[in-house]
């Protein structure tokens, strides 16, 4: 298997959709495909933290953004990383209109469901990048 796919969500602070991005990233990296992915906090990249930047170098990342400012995608690009896929929470929500999230510090049930759906979509992308067939 190739090296791990980096998952970089926006910081997810202050908005429900950002929180969904962050929670979805946790589901991917801790539950669905922990052996194939690694979470990189966008805050460390913003700060220019050496280990985070060196992890990014030469490795493809999937960014997950909660709004159209797309901070995660921009920060990865500006930090010398390669964005293989840009995932927007809003695009996932548009396909699952019944899952409108609310809550910020603590997501409601819809928010957690949306995060799960998002994570499963990211899992598909990860499997595509690592050359594995998904059975999800």
């Amino acid at each position, binding site marked *: 298997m190739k090296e791990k796919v980096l998952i970089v969500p926006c910081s997810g602070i202050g908005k429900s959709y950002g929180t969904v991005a962050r929670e979805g990233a946790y589901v991917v990296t801790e539950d669905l495909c922990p052996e194939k992915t690694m979470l990189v906090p966008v805050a460390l990249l913003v700060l220019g933290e050496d280990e985070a930047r060196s992890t990014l170098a030469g490795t493809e990342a999937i960014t997950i953004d909660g709004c*159209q400012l797309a901070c995660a995608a921009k920060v990865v690009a500006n930090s010398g990383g390669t964005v293989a896929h840009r995932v927007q929470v809003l695009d996932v*929500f548009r396909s699952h*209109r019944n899952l409108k999230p609310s809550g910020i510090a603590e997501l409601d049930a819809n928010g957690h469901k949306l995060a799960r759906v998002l994570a499963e979509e990211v899992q598909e992308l990860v499997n595509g990048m690592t050359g594995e067939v998904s059975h999800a």
Partner: protein
Amino acid sequence: MPGEILKVTVDKFTFRVPKGLSYSDAGVWVKLEGNRARLGLSDFAQQSSGDVAFANIKPDGTDLERGDAFAEVETVKVNVSVPSPVNGTIVEVNLSLAEAPELINQDPYGKGWLAVVELSDWENDRAYLLDAETYLALVKGQAAEEMKR
């Protein structure tokens, strides 16, 4: 969007108000095109509403009285009923918004337009609309109020 664009910055937000358009106090811009008016959300209205998830606009042939909701815009923050600033009949709807509602955020005065209305009482309607300078002042005040919350 051709022509001069007025701008006001409140805190970290900058709002654009093109001259040459008219505006309702609810944040709907009006571009007169013969006896028709093209309508859309102002930059301030779209920024304060948030990222648009869905936009449902009433279909061609819908008769409107000024104040009637002609569009429902669902954003990440709120559901907005957009009141018509004019009397008339919808003759064209921006079908692109069904697939790409984010155009309202990305290009509110261009590709993000909502509908075109055949006007039935423009002389009366125009009395209720604001020019760019007046609307800019309104935006500045409303944005300042928003910042206090």
